[in-house]
């Protein structure tokens, strides 16, 4: 679904959901310990053209998650972003989406996207807009590859998909 023209209300909900996702996902301790620079922070990164604007900052900043301070990082390129815990891949990167997702495969980054094939391309959580509501797909295989544990309660809310790559890769 290219060329999405989404209302601010939807982005607002999605900004909030971004924060909630971090709450229902468990990063492996060891991994985090070695991640330099992040430590007590939890970095929310936006790659590409930022659809949220200030809404993201409003939803994330000031609301610590498991004592980790949320930080928002924006960048056009993956390299610019540094270490990310949650990475939103804007629809502006659709062309490079697969490459990015492959690059991030087996990294402990919770990837969130909004393009229609994001999950299928190996993204972990994909927003699906249904009317004024926002649902999401969770690619548990991708999450498994990233070493992230997604809580059942979140999974119960989401539409769980598999990409099969795991079989391939794993």
């Amino acid at each position: 679904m290219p060329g999405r023209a989404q209302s601010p209300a939807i982005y607002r909900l999605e900004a909030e959901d971004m924060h909630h996702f971090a709450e229902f996902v468990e990063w492996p301790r060891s991994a985090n310990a070695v991640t330099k620079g992040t430590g007590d922070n939890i970095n929310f990164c936006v790659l590409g053209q930022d659809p949220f604007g200030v809404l993201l900052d409003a939803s994330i900043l000031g609301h610590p998650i498991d004592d980790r301070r949320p930080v928002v990082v924006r960048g056009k390129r993956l390299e610019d972003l540094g270490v990310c815990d949650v990475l939103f891949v804007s629809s502006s990167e659709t062309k490079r989406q697969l490459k990015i997702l492959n690059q991030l495969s087996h990294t402990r980054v919770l990837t969130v996207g909004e393009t229609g094939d994001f999950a299928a391309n190996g993204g972990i959580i994909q927003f699906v807009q249904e009317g004024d509501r926002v649902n999401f797909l969770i690619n548990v295989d991708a999450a498994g590859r990233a070493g992230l544990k997604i809580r059942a309660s979140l999974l119960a809310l989401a539409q769980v998909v598999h990409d099969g790559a795991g079989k391939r890769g794993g």
Partner: protein
Amino acid sequence: MAPASAADEMKRSLDHQSIRGKLTRIILISCGIAVVSACVIFAAYDIRVTRQSRLRTVATLAEITGTNSIAALSFRDEQSGREILRSLRADKQLTHAALYTPEGKVLAVYSRDPQATVFAPPSTETDGADFVAGKIVAFHNIELNGKPAGTIYLESDLSMIVMREEGLAAMIGFGLFVSLLLAALVGSRMQSSISEPILELARTAFAIAVDKNYSVRMVSKSEDEIGFLYEQFNSMLARIQDRDRELEQGRTELEQRVAERTAYLKALVETSPMGIVTTDPQGRVQVCNTAFEHLFQYVRDEIAGTDLDSLIAPPELSEEAADFTRRSDAGESIQKVTKRRRKDGSMVDVELYGTPMHVGNEHAGGLIIYHDISERKQTEEALLSAKETAEEANRAKSEFLANMSHEIRTPMNGILGMTQLTLETPLTGEQREYLGMVKSSADSLLTLLNDILDFSKIEAGKFDLDLSPFALRETMGEALKALGHLAHRKGLELAWQVDTAVPEWLVGDSGRLRQILVNLVMNAIKFTEHGEVVVSVNAESRTSDNVELHFSVRDTGIGILPEKQRLIFAAFTQADNSTTRKYGGTGLGLSISQALVKMMDGGISVESEPRKGSIFHFTARLSIPESSFIPPPAIEPDALRGLPALVVDDNQTNRLILTQLLSQWGLVPEQAASGSEALELLANTRRSSAPFRLALIDADMPEMDGFALAERIKKTAEASAPSMFMLSSTMQSGDITRSREAGLAGFLTKPVQPSELLDAILGAMSKTGRIPSVAEDVQSPRQVSSTGGGMRILLAEDNLVNRQLATRLLEKRGYTVLIAKNGVEAVAAVEHEEIDLVLMDVQMPEMDGLEAIRSIRATEKVSGRHLPIVSLTAHVMKGDREKCIEAGADDYIPKPIQAPSLFAAIERMSIPKCDDEPSMSTDIPSDSLNTAELLEQVQGDRELLAEIVQLFESGLPAILQGLRESIARGDAPEIARIAHTLRGSVGNFGRRGAYRAVEQMEKLAKEGDIAETAKALVAVESELESLLAALESFRTPAAEAVVAEKTAIQ
């Protein structure tokens, strides 16, 4: 309130049930209460726990479900929210549930029964679960990472809890039922162990109460309280049994004793010699004794129950009997001597005692005791008649005595009067002596008679006092005057003294006072051989209008034995019967005195020591005249001269005596033999120049008696009526009052003593003012001397009483008195003091009066002056006077000292100083002898006068001889001395011709004119001759004097 009244109700219902029922109920109620309260507590606890548990469950469910809903809430997943809530269906009680977003928006709703109601979830609230309106409501806020993620609401109903509670209630009810059933079963068995013995006790007690069989005993089966109760019940029964036995025994004894006592009382009543009867309150006979039966001749059976009053009270005394019954019913005890009727109708004298009878506090009727006094009554009647007879006899005797005394008095009157008259006629010595004895016997008889009369009057209570003003000192002086001579004849001194505190004028019966005094003094003189008799009067107590006088008569006589002292005042007794013969007297004097003193509100007593003397005391209360009272001026008998007087008496002897007496005093009497004659005479003289001024009227006259006459005179003559005196031989009670009412001047008892009559006449005359009193136109000696005070008098007297008496008398008259207690003192006083006159007692210690006089006169021979000396002597014996004169005394006066003679003597001595006073010479008749004056000087003692005359006469020749010889010798001083002595002697007979002649001669002798003295002697001799002629009548007592007076008047 309610539970309390319920408990009360329960208790009340218990009270009415049998003990068995009570016990059962108690067991059941207790058991029920225990079970119910245990179950209720348990159930309450269970319900509470269940509810709390449920509450916690709901809260837990809310929390669990909330946590499960976090994701759904975070991502607003309504679908999954609903699914989560739907999982609550497992709990059947949860009715509703809801999920809210943090903003409060409802995310999901759940209802157990979707069809039933549309559930509107409530707005969110704070955390918590609670019971609200029969359900449990729970809110739980869900947080995620410290951020509110939403809220869950649960609502649960209580259906399970209610079910459980119902189950519990059913279980409790069942349990209760079962336990009560068991309790009733077990209780009914066990309670019989308590109730059964009690019921048995009750049954036994009832049986004993019915059968009165106290020998029953309970058998105890247990040793608890009931066992103890049985024992006590048994011992109580035993005691009751004992008590019954004792009571039985006591009753038997009591009955026996009652029987004994009843028998005793019955015997007491029966054996009483007095008739005893008791009545019921209606006056009906109940019980009577044998004496009553005998007294009234009734048998008790026939009178029991009949009315006592109608039975034995005679009809004429029924009123009295009814009165007794009334009074007895009122509680009074009655004693009465009366009469009662026997069965046979005869009357019996009884002394009746009636008294109300009380048994306990009940009025049980009356007790009446009858004492048969018919014998006593007879005795009394006999005594009464004897007494009446005796009284009658006594009355007759009294009347006889009164009549007799009158009968005796009349002849006595005659005897005395006629003897008096006879004595005044020329008589031989022998005749005179015999007649003197007749007179003295008659006097004694009269005194006796008067005593007896007085006594019988006092006895009869017919004695009145004649109260009038009198001068006490004068009265006493007069009374004691005559007694003084009696005393002197026995060689006794009689002195009297009246205390200055005693008023001069008093109101009382002076005659009776005099009688008492004379009686006591007479007795004193009678029983005294040596020494003196002293009368003194003191005022014991005095108020404004009366004074109690205390008289005492002291003698130095034989005295009275103590045991006799009480007797002497009794009538007809004397201290010693043996003295009667020796001393004479009726023995009535003292008892009369006692009676008189009693009438004067006084008392009489005696103190005495045998052989030492006696003192008789008596007191008398006398009134003091009001201050307005002016004592009547003294009147000289001379003043009566020439007054026309009337003597009215049917008895010729009496008329004669009275006429003679009046003539003696210078009155001009006329006689009337009856009342009518008297009235006639009065009528004749009324218009004449000389109406009667005085009338002596006999009380007892035929036709018209004295009182009637007095009234007639009073009526017809009015203001010009003469002063009237009633003379009576018997004085009746009330006579004095009657006399006073009739306007009489006085009442006198016959035979009248001349002095008494004279006093009475003088008193009356001065009171009425019919005759001029001496004070008005004659210069009385008293007045002369009281103005001529300042004269210094030396009183030589060893006797204290006499000294005081004389001093007082003299000082009262204004003289200055100097005292000498013996001759030595007297002589010394004369030498050193200026003295105008000496009163010299003859008998004095150390130096007697005569010696003292001689001593004084001896010194006077040198000095040439002559001090007048008057000697005082009790020895009026022949020779005494001479001794005094010889010793040089100018005059002498006898003792006891009498004021008139004392003053007369002093005045005689002081006259030379006022010799030339013409007033003195004018009233002295030059040629005649003033008999009255002469008698006055000797206090009416004719015997004394006779003695003096004889002395004078016998001494005269010697004196005249002496004078003649002295003249012949030319011895002027001797002439003067003899003339002086002569003058003193002649002065005794009045300062008339002879006195003046001698005085003149003395004067001439002192001048030394012998020739003139010789001439004077002739005059003296001729005057003396005529004086002697005039004195002739006095040479022998009384009779001659009267004759002389008679001739002088005629």
